[in-house]
Structure formats: structure tokens, C-alpha cells
């Protein structure tokens, strides 16, 4: 007798985690707006627009990191092309934002500025319906899902795995980046989409819009965490973990790994697409450099720093690395790459379980010393 879905979802997190999630939502949905709008700017408790944008951006990254963790931490498949799905979601929503500019662009045309610049007379076919929010919201989910499904189906069917798969995903995002760099592709070439004015008819730069986007991102992140923790604890998640640990054995028992891998791959891609769509209106720009191989590999380090195979790890990792990045690039821009490079090396060499693993080890040691003075309990 299976319990109803809601009960199972509720049961997927323990009470401590639900509490943490509640505190997080209370902070982002109540405290942040109050501190941004009601607290006067000169007060120490005031949160600046810079802070809101930064944290909003990092929450999008955290969402990507969770998506990456689902496929890497639980599926054992390292993708070096997740930047592509992120950018696809971003571009899909960017199309809508470009149409929302209307006639307020520099050329006062119905077409986006870059098309006027290229002397195009009408929208290309794939821009059809880009002025409708509903269609674009569908595209945000469908475009990454479709690309991921087609690519994943063929790759997993041929049983490409390990580093082969990683390198091919890297080639995929690299090829896509080159494609989007071309002006003729119809996505703004080098410059991508920027100078957005409105979303759903309201100004995109007003504090209220920013706070709504910020809150939406927080809710999405929280919902994703709940969904992911239910998913990995479900039967599906257990089979997936088994595939990660011993694919051949799972096959011998009678499972077909193809559909398990493909499902988690598409879910991961769609989550990235959502993150991209939330990212673009907050940051105000999307361009092909989001698809560069370097960006995608950076996603892996967020997950590795936090600790893969745990769900809170990627969120911690994304926050830690990106806060460090914004601090370094302002204070010591020339040392950022040294730091990031060393982070890659140190984390893989010394912290294979990331910060979460480090915390657990420390806590165990602490408990051991508290429980018995002599560590006889150790094996």
C-alpha cells in the first residue's frame, strides 16, 4: 500500500530540513523586501539593489548546481555542457523580453534593434509567438528538454559514458556557442539580448519587479530542492544511484539504464532552462559566452565544492564560490583565476565530498571525542 504523493513528498525531508527551508523562504520573501524597501538607505540593515541582484543571480546558479548534482552526483554522469541548457532557457525568455521593448528601442521599430541593424524586414519563423508570455514560458521548458532528449537519447543508447560523454557535451556547447555568435542565427550575435525595458508590461528595473523576480527565484529553488529530495529517495532515484555505482549489474538484473539516465538528463536540462529564464531578467543580459565550455565546467566546481550526492551541497557550493568570485573580482581581479584554479585542484584532491563532507567528518570527530575519551569505537 503506497502512501499518497503529498505525504511521500512531505516525508522526503526531515523536520530540520523543513525548518531550514521555512527560514530561507521567510528571509527571502519577507525580510529581504522589507529591508530593501522599508529600511532607509543609510541604515546598516538596508539591502542595496546590488545585493538583491547578486543574491538573485546566485540563487539561479544554485538552481543550476542542483540540476547538475542530480545528473552528476546521483547519476554519475558529468556534463560539461549544462551552460547550453541554461543559455537556451535564457534565450527563450530573452526573446519575450526583446519583444516587450516594443518601439522603445534605438530604431523605434517593431523588430528588435539587432534585426534592424542587420536590415531584416520581418521576424524569423522561430520568433513566432515570442510576444506571448505563455508560449515563451513553454519554450523555456521545451527547448532545453528537446535538445537534451535528442542528444541524450543517442548518446545513452550508444552507451557513451564517463569522460567520453563529458567531452562530447563540451563539444556540443562549444558548437552551440559558435552558432549563436553568428549574426545570421537570429539571436543577436556577439551582443546577445540586452537593454530590456519591461516584463509583463511593468518596468523591469523597478524595485518591486526586482523583488518579485527575487522571490520567484527563491520559491523555485526551494520547490526544486523539495522535488529533488523526493526524486532521489523514490524508487527511480534508487535505481539511478545503482546505475551510477554499477551500471552493468543493474542491466543484468533487468533494468534498462537508458530511460533512467535519459529522464534525469532531461529533468536536469529543464531545471537549467528555468534557471536561465529567471537569470536573464534579473541580470539584464544574455549572450553566447554563457555557453562557453569554461562556464559549464565552473558549474561542476560549484557542485564539487559543496559536495556532490547531497542536495544542500550544490546550493552551499554555488553560494560559496560565487560570493568569493564577486569579492575577488572586485578586490583582487588578477588573483581570481589562481584562486579558482587552486579550488579545482584542492577540492578534487583533498575534499572529494566537498564542504558538506568536511562538516560531517568534523562533527563525527567531535561526537567521538565527546562520547568516549578514547576512540575505541573506530574500526
Amino acid at each position: 500500500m503506497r502512501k499518497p504523493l503529498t505525504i511521500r513528498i512531505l516525508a522526503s525531508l526531515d523536520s530540520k530540513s523543513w525548518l531550514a527551508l521555512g527560514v530561507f523562504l521567510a528571509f527571502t520573501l519577507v525580510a529581504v523586501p522589507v529591508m530593501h524597501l522599508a529600511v532607509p538607505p543609510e541604515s546598516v540593515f538596508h539591502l542595496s539593489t546590488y545585493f538583491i541582484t547578486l543574491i538573485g543571480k546566485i540563487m539561479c546558479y544554485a538552481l543550476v548546481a542542483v540540476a547538475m548534482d542530480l545528473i552528476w552526483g546521483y547519476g554519475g554522469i558529468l556534463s560539461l555542457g549544462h551552460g547550453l541548457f541554461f543559455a537556451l532557457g535564457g534565450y527563450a525568455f530573452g526573446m519575450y523580453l526583446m519583444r516587450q521593448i516594443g518601439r522603445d528601442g534605438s530604431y523605434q521599430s517593431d523588430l528588435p534593434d539587432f534585426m534592424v541593424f542587420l536590415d531584416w524586414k520581418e521576424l524569423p519563423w522561430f520568433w513566432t509567438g515570442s510576444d506571448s508570455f505563455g508560449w515563451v514560458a513553454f519554450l523555456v521548458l521545451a527547448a532545453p528538454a528537446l535538445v537534451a532528449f535528442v542528444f541524450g537519447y543517442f548518446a545513452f543508447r550508444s552507451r557513451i559514458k564517463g569522460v567520453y560523454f563529458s567531452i562530447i557535451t563540451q563539444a556540443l556547447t562549444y558548437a552551440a556557442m559558435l552558432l549563436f555568435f553568428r549574426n545570421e542565427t537570429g539571436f543577436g550575435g556577439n551582443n546577445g539580448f540586452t537593454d530590456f525595458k519591461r516584463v509583463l508590461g511593468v518596468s523591469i528595473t523597478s524595485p518591486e519587479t526586482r523583488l518579485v523576480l527575487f522571490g520567484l527565484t527563491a520559491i523555485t529553488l526551494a520547490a526544486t530542492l523539495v522535488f529533488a529530495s523526493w526524486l532521489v529517495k523514490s524508487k527511480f532515484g534508487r535505481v539511478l544511484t545503482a546505475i551510477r555505482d554499477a551500471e552493468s549489474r543493474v542491466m543484468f538484473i533487468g533494468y534498462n539504464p537508458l530511460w533512467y539516465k535519459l529522464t534525469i538528463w532531461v529533468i536536469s536540462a529543464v531545471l537549467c532552462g528555468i534557471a536561465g529564464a529567471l537569470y536573464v531578467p534579473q541580470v539584464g543580459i544574455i549572450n553566447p559566452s554563457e555557453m562557453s565550455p569554461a562556464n559549464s565546467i565552473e558549474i561542476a566546481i560549484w557542485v564539487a565544492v559543496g559536495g556532490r550526492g547531497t542536495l544542500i551541497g550544490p546550493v552551499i557550493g554555488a553560494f560559496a564560490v560565487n560570493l568569493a568570485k564577486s569579492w575577488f573580482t572586485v578586490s583582487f581581479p588578477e588573483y581570481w583565476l589562481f584562486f579558482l584554479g587552486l579550488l579545482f585542484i584542492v577540492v578534487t584532491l583533498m575534499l572529494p565530498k566537498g564542504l558538506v563532507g568536511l562538516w560531517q567528518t568534523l562533527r563525527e570527530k567531535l561526537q567521538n571525542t565527546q562520547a568516549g575519551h578514547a576512540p575505541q569505537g573506530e574500526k
Partner: protein
Amino acid sequence: MKNTILAFLLLASSLAAQAALDPVAVRQLAAEDSGDKVTAIRQLVQTADPDAVRVLKAMAEDSLFVAGDQVLIIEGEQAFDAATGKSVKMPASPESPTVNNRIRGELAAALAALKLFDADPVVRLASAQKLQSNVNPAMAPLLGRALERETDAQIKALLTLAYAQANLGNSDPAARLAAVKALAETSSPVIKSVLLPLTEKAGEPDDKVRYEAIAAVKSIDSRLAMTENLGRVFSGLSLGSILLLAALGLAITYGVMGIINMAHGELLMVGAYSAYGMQTLFRAWFPEAIDWYLPAAIPVAFFSAALVGVVMERTVIRWLYGRTLETLLATWGISLVLIQSARVLFGAQNVEVSNPSWMSGGIEIMPNLILPWNRIIIVGFAMFVLVLVWVLMNKTRLGMFVRAVTQNRPMAGCVGVPTSRIDTMAFALGAGIAGLGGVALSQISNVGPDMGQGYIVDSFMVVVVGGVGQLAGAVWAALGLGIFSKLLEGWAGAVIAKITVLVAIIIFIQKRPQGIFALKGRFVDN
């Protein structure tokens, strides 16, 4: 009226050829009007007389003077009559005729044409080559005569072309037809552009000649397209050699040792910066031997890249054997550190590495196909490195150990192969070869901190397509990818070609996940 006189003069001169210079024509050299001077020059050229050479040369060197009715050549304190060459009394106030740019151009062409009659075949050859690109119809009779007299086959072929070009302006359709037929055999874009006006009604009234010209342009076009494709195959070959140099090192570290080295591109960069360093060193200490900096850079690049490789292997990669995905991330970290170190040491801008003088220029195979020396040398260098690697892997003790460790690590260890030292050495070898690739790259592309990033995807593609652990696979894959992408570039543009190649590789991997040359064997991976 004037034209009639000129025509008469022309006729007279060709009748009286070789006798002596026509005094009227010589006098006309000093005429007021530039057009008259040009006519006179062309007329004198027709005589093909050594005296004419003397006079025209004097005019070109500004030693031709006029005094009253006399035209004189003045050399130092002595004066000679231009027409006869006899010594005459120095006049009181000789005047120099105006020689403007148009006249100078005409004189140069005339002197070149007259050189066709020189006794030295080398001079004749140079002159015939010069005439290929600037012939005027007035030279036709002269060229005809030179052609009759010529014995050297090479010069004769060149003259035939020049003669045909000059004859395109002939008023007799039969002569034009013969000229067009002669020109149809060539494959030079210049001749094609000369023939193009004749394919239209406005440029050629005679139907027969016009059809012939259309056919001629078509046949030249097809030959041009062929040489163009040949050129593309060659640049594909040279791109393939670069890919091969970049991928050979990877074939060892990834293929043989199973290590994903994302910092491989940065090892190329280390090699390229070594070339830059040697260039700076030679400029400062041995400026007279600057051309030799490149050979000197080869060992330096090999050992500096190998040293970086040893440090990498000992400090990081050693601890990650068997964890390929982690190696990938750690080596990516190393690549970031190396890039930033290059920025700190040499600046973020690209540095300038120049070709030694013996690498500039090229071999002209056909008028529209020039193979640059630097590319040829790189193709040769890649072959050299390939042979070196093959010998190292197949004929030396180290190579045998490396292959043994690849095939069965525990068993190799049991029979006494120092496996961990072999790992270090193999990695250093792979890194050193990347350094050599960097030296080659420094000669044809920008040298900067980010240069390695562009090659990492490509060189992995080579290794993946070629098949893991296979040198032969890497060779075929590198050359194949190089030529395939250059041919595609020819009709689709660089970006589309690149995307197509990447997509083709992704599809290829679906079909043959183990690459072109798969290792045969039965194994379960897990």
C-alpha cells in the same frame, strides 16, 4: 592628318628595320606632347635595335637632351648623337625633355620588351615574365619577332602567352581566334580577366571568337577551381599537422594512460612562450644569429613543457589515477593557474613571435596556388615529431614499459616495471610533445595566455575520433579532420564548417564509440 603621318612613320620604320634609328622618331622623343612621345617610344621598340635600347635607356636615366634640332645623349663631358651614336660637339645649352610618370611606365615596358632580344637567356626569361601582366597591342609584331628568334622552350611558352595577349586587340578575327585558343591553355586569374571582356558582344563583335573566349574562360575556371581545391587540401593538411601535434601528446596521456588532461592546451602555450623567450634572448645576445632562435627553441620548449608536466603529475595527477572525472576537473584547475601565470609573467596581451627569414615566402606551384614555407615546414615538423614518437613508443625500452603499463598495470609491476616512474615519464613525454606543438603554433597564430583554450576541444576530438590508445588513429583523425574542415570552409564559411565538423563527430561517436581504430578485446567496464 597627324594619325596618317604616324601610321606612315610606323610603316617606314618597320621597313627600314635594323638599318639605323629613324631620326624623325628620335626627334619625336623630345616632342612637347606626351602622346607623341609614347608613339615614338613604341616605334623605336619595334626596331629591336641595340641602338634603340641605348636611347630609351638614356631617356629613362635622364641623360637624353635636346639642343636645337639635335637629340643628344650626354655622358659626363661627352655628347653623342642619339640617332647615329656618333660623337658630336658639346652644345652650349642642352635641354632635358620632360619625362612624366606615364612616359616612365612606357619606357619601362619598352625596355623590358627590348630585353627579349638580349643574348643572356636569364635576362630574356625575366623580361618575358614581366610582360605577362602588362602587354599592349602595339607590342604584337615585336613579340612575334622575338618568338621566331627564341630557342629556349620555357621562354618560348611565356612569349606565346604574351603574344596571344597582345593579339587579342588585333583587328583580324582569325588572329584573335588563334590568340584566344592559345590563352585557353593557361590557368592564371590575370589571363581570365583579360579574356572576360571578349565573352560579351560589346567587347567582341565576331561570334566565333566570342564562343571560343567563353569556352576558354570556362576551361580556365575549371582549372582555377581545381588549384583552389588543391590549395584547400594543402591548408587542410597544414591544419591537420597542427592538430596532430596538439593531439599526439594527448594520445599518450589520454589514450595510453587514461588521463584527461584539460591543461593540455596550456602546455601548447608553454611551448609557444618558450619560442617567444628564445626569440627575446637571441635578440638581446645574438642578434646576428636571430634566424636560429627557432631551432634553439625546440629543445627548450620540449623540456619546459615536460617539466611543467612532471610537476603536474607528481603533485596532482598521481593522486587521481582511476578517477578520470576528477582528473578532468583538477587539470582544468591547473589550466586556469597556468593561464593566469602567463598573464602575470608576460602580460594579458598577445606577444609577437616573428618567422625567421628562412620561413617566409613560399613556393609558387601555380599562379593562384602559393604554398607558404612556414606551413610546409610545419607539415614536415609534424612528420618528424610523429616518427620520433613512434620510435620512442615502439623501439625503446621506455616505450615498451609504457605499453606494458597500459596493457596490464599490475602484471607489469610484478615483472619489475617501475610503474609509477613510467607514469611520470610518459606524462612528461606527452607534455613535451605538446610543447613542440606550441613552437609550431607560435609560427602561424597568435601567442597569448588564452591560445591553448581554442585547441583543447579540437585536440580531444582528434583523440576521440582516432580511438583511444592509438597513434595511427590520431594521425588519420587529425589529417582527416583538418582536410575535411578546410574543404567545408571553402563553401560554407569558417563557423558553419566548425559546427558541422563538431556535429559530425558527435554523430560519428554514436556509431563508433571506440573511434576509427578500436582496441580489440573483451572487457566489461565498471
